[in-house]
């Protein structure tokens, strides 16, 4: 499965995929990695990605890559979340939410969840734009050189990679490589 995601991501980055699709996958992947799992917010956000035209493989890889780093950001999330959740003026609103069916399962009252949602909410758009730009830049400047590099050619020629690519019906994307 992980191999499939890697191949998928590699193909998406280098094929004629919409940069926004990959940028969304990266931004959402980072967001999902930052938000603590095991609550309804995380599950709903993940479920939402199934209905968006984003690259699932990229998203999963990004989640796997960024999840270990999430705890590094926890002090920030905790501070932001605590500030928001204990804001006096909003307390009655939170109390109402807390007493609303299903909402308690979102874990909104957890400082890490609330903080990460706020921080990632703010960072999402800049992150998405930056990713999009970087992908466009990569495709314009680096893609050809990268794909024509001997390392990539050797890796692509590995039987396991080609076999996996065949199995996952993604080989056609690899065949688009030039050079």
């Amino acid at each position, binding site marked *: 499965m992980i191999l499939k995601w890697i191949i998928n991501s590699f193909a998406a980055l280098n094929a004629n*995929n919409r940069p926004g699709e990959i940028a969304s996958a990266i931004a959402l992947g980072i967001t999902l990695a930052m938000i603590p*799992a095991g609550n309804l917010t995380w599950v709903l956000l993940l479920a939402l990605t199934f*209905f968006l035209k984003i690259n699932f493989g990229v998203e999963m890889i990004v989640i796997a890559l960024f999840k270990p780093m999430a705890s590094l950001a926890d002090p920030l999330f905790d501070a932001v979340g605590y500030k928001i959740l204990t804001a006096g003026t909003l307390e009655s609103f939170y109390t109402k939410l*807390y*007493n609303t*069916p299903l909402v308690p*399962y979102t874990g909104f009252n957890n400082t890490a969840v609330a903080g990460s949602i706020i921080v990632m909410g703010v960072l999402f758009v800049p992150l998405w734009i930056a990713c999009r730009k970087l992908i466009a830049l990569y495709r314009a400047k680096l893609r050809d050189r990268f794909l024509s590099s001997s390392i990539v050619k050797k890796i692509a020629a590995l039987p396991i990679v080609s076999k996996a690519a065949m199995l996952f019906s993604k080989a056609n994307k690899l065949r688009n490589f030039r050079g």
Partner: protein
Amino acid sequence: MAAKLKKFFKKSWPAKKFEKKLLGKVFLKDDRELLLSAYEKKENQYILIEPDNADTVKKLNKLIPGIKKNSGALGIGKIASLAVVVISFTVFTVFFQNPLAEKAMEKGLEKIFRAESEVTGLRLSLFGGFIRYKSMQVADRDNPDRNLFQTGEAVIDLDMSEVLKGKFAANEIKLEDFAIGEKRAVRAKAIKGAVKKEKPASGAASSDVIKEAASAITKLPDNLIPDRETVKKVIIEKADQLSAPKEAEKIASELKSGAENIKAGVEKTESDIKNLEKDVNEIMASKLSSKLDLAGARKLADRIKSASKRISSITNTVESSQKEIEKLRKTAADGKKNIEKAVSNDIEYIISLFPGKGSFSVSSLAQPLVKEKLDPFMQKYGKAYEIIIKIKESGDKKKDGAAPAAAETRRGRDVRYAVYGSPSLHIRKVSGSFFTGENRHSLEIKDITNNQELAGKPLVFLIKSSLDNIKTEADGFFDTRKSAADFSGITVAVTGGKISNLSFLAPAGIDKLSADMDISASTAISADKDFTGSAGISLEKFRMNTTSQTGRIISGIIEKENKIDFEAKYSLSKGDFSLKIKSSLDNLIAKAVSPEKIAAEVKSFAADELAEVLKEKAGIQAEADAQIAELGKKIGTLEKSIKDQKKELDSKLKSLPIKF
């Protein structure tokens, strides 16, 4: 065959549309250049230049899936798939869910019980948290003509708005008309694989336990107050100690012998008077030959003198008899007085043999029950009530508003907010009914919760039952709101309860017992899970038929009273159960068994019984009295007769020619 460009690439595109729909969906530099090379821009149009190179055509055709795929941000296919799933599910729910669920339930029951099972009118709402069926019957595989069990309507209606908050809340849980072993309308079909199993021997019937307990509590002491028979028995046993019968016998004997003596004297006097009368008649008939017949006169005079002497003698005898009779009358009068005094003394003596209790406690009646039944029961099962404590403690823990378990995370901190008045366990209504034979019992409980303080309501219950002929109609409540944290003030009340026809009390000598009852109780449970409490029981319209004397006394007392109040104090400490009962009945019975009351009862019985014993002696006495009266009368007649004769003799004597 040479490759042909697909129709996707129209011959001309408006410039804006081309840039948006085609060029805008191609993101690789080489692909964009390839696409632009296939079109020529003229004014506001992109005109297709048919490529003659097969390789270019092939490359262009390969661009099509990518262009199509890059259109739109939403996965229409996935959304459509979801829509199909939702619509299918809705169709399934509306048209197939209930019949399929009904079948599945029947199959499940048949698999469990290996017997034909029927479920009717099943309605299921997964999102509404609702399931209901109209009836269910499971046949007895050992007896296809009967059901193993059957039920009427059953409902489970969950409150999903609370369930989705991570709480267990139900609007209603209902199971009606549950019955075991009822006859089936149609013989059940055999189910494959049904194997007969030996039924395990059942334990002692619950009614036996009730009978034993009732028997223990109702061993009424039978010596609280003596009855007539007891008093009679004592009088017979203690006859030697009684003076009245002896005195009566003595008096009767004296009167009898006195009367007989007088009677003998009177009879002699009568005979003397008869002889005298003969002489007097002869004297009165004798006549002198002449006035000068002095010798004859003298002789007659002598006869008269002799007769007069005899009259004097008889008169003395009569006077003596009269004195005897007077004496006898005095003896009779004194005797009566002595007997009365003796009777009085005897009654006092008998009363002294039956000292009154002067006090009574219903608690003493309950002690056998406590010792024989409640203590072993509480030691064995007493800790069962801790289940209620555990449920309640779980409610208390969540009172401050903890987040549901599913929302717990290891990262960050959980900020807690107040929970709006709803406990984590709340069943608003549980109702049900079941049959034992012909008797239907029903139970309705409202507001079962682990935190009554949050729910803002006490538990309310209504019971209608006629188990073992105890007809009970009771409504009451169980209130822990004031002691949400520590169980220090649990209150329970039952009002309008009715008990009647306690046939199982027959071994205790109670044929029938009925009363309306109100019960209120408050209990405090300590940290060690021991409890202490008190209960008030008020009984009205009390009726009791009993064969025991004490039972009759109690029955006589309570049936006159409008209301009997009992106050019970109970406690459980280290498995030992204690029960003490105070009652308004105590005072009433204490009065009934007081020395004064006992004395009055015994006096009445003893007087009657002594009168019976003295009856024979009194007969003799009365006979003697009558004899004395008759003799007195006779003596009076004799006295008159003598006086008449004396008068006649005196006149005869005066008529004689000679003077004496």
